């Protein structure tokens, strides 16, 4: 029962960001084959952060490339003197960690409608108390022929 309430809270938190995902993501990458193809796998990750609630756990640390469709309320995002550096505090409870966890995002983001939109392919990794991801050039990722989209989870 507790689980159902938690799930409901997450759904409501996501819904409280109207227009959170105005443009559906459809990155023009081929789906990854089950067999080794030599291509780099890009894993989609969709989440919203508002009112201290993260709608989905951070992506697994096992992978290098993620397709982010991440929307965070403006007041949840810390900005820096460098225009292309941001960070958010990921609250405990939605994943394995017990204390606040910081996610640093490098690269351009769009600020609109009281939110920050982090959309695109990010590469990076995470440590025990923070993660750092860098935005890659979408056009380069799409046209290079070196990447595939892995929606297997």
């Amino acid at each position, binding site marked *: 029962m507790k689980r159902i309430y938690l799930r409901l809270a997450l759904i409501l938190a996501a819904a409280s960001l109207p*227009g959170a995902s*105005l*443009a*559906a*993501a*459809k*990155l*023009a*990458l*081929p789906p990854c084959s089950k067999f080794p193809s030599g291509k780099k796998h890009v894993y989609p990750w969709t989440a919203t952060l508002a009112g201290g609630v993260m709608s989905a756990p951070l992506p697994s640390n096992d992978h290098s490339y993620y*397709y982010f*469709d991440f929307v965070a309320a403006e007041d949840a995002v810390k900005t820096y003197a460098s225009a292309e550096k941001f960070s958010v505090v990921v609250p405990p409870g939605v994943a394995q960690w017990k204390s606040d966890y910081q996610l640093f995002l490098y690269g351009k983001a*769009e600020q*609109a*409608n009281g*939110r920050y*939109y982090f*959309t*695109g392919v990010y590469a990076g990794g995470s440590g025990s108390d923070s993660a750092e991801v860098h935005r890659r*050039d*979408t*056009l*380069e990722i*799409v*046209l*290079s*022929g070196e990447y595939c989209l892995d929606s297997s989870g």
Partner: protein
Amino acid sequence: MRTGAGMTAIICSALLVALSHPAIAGRPIPDTGLDHCKPRGEHRIPVPTWSVDASTNALSPSPPPPSIAGGSFVYIVLGADMYPSTFDIRSGGAVYPASCGKFSYSPLVSFDLPKDRKNPTAGGTRLHLKALGTFSHGTCSYDGFFISASAPQTAQGWTDLTFDPVDKTPPRDRYCLADVNTARRPEPRKVLPPCERTAHRIPIPVWQPAVSADGELTSDPPHQHGAIVSTSIEVPRAADGNCIGWRNGDFRFVRKNPISSANNSGLAVLLRGNDSAGPASCRLSGFYLNEPIFDVQDGWSRTFFGAIDANRMIDSGQYCLARRGEESK
């Protein structure tokens, strides 16, 4: 009979005279921050370099401007005489005599580049740059990256070209510098195979709307972040001669919200690049990558399509052309 040393001295003197006037000699291209394009196998988009001698006593006619598509960059190297001047400065509706670098902002500088210098009434190019010049040895120089600011307009043999300055060097990984005054080498046009003949490829939707006189599109674009679309749009010219929707290198069209009674909300569609201008219309034709714009202003949401290199996309071997009607899956 001249001696070898005498002949050498004459040649050297002639060279020195020529080189002492930078506008006549054609100044070398400074370090632009971009690599020069490779002669073969270049996947980056070439930025044309247009070197213009706008002095009154230029020895050769001005080279024609490169073929410029909206939103594409041009590197301009231009030298013009100050005395007598061959250009004027326009600011706030007033015309000032030529001055070089005396403004705290970039004024509009206009140059007449006749096709035939002996017959200036035969027409040519009128070049308008928003830029600050640099004065040296009687010559005002204008160097830098520019972007076309309005559709070229031709009247009575004169074509008006207007350029805005670009703040930053175009990204090195996506652009390279083409040779001076040479048109982009036409590469053999490759064709995206239809999806019926291929397996396991990503279908690229085809979007071919018409544009009304108000800039309204007849169909919705398939807009999803990171998606590629094949487009062909014929854009008529408006009464002022500009193609409908053209502004600062972009085309902006609208899809009004059919439900809204006020008729003042909907989707604004921005397209950059892959355009060409004809006498009666402009044409947007090619492949575009969709990127989201999340800002909603006064009921209008927006979406952006940036031109991509068709040959590189086709060479990736990942895509096929969807049949019309199958695209929006």
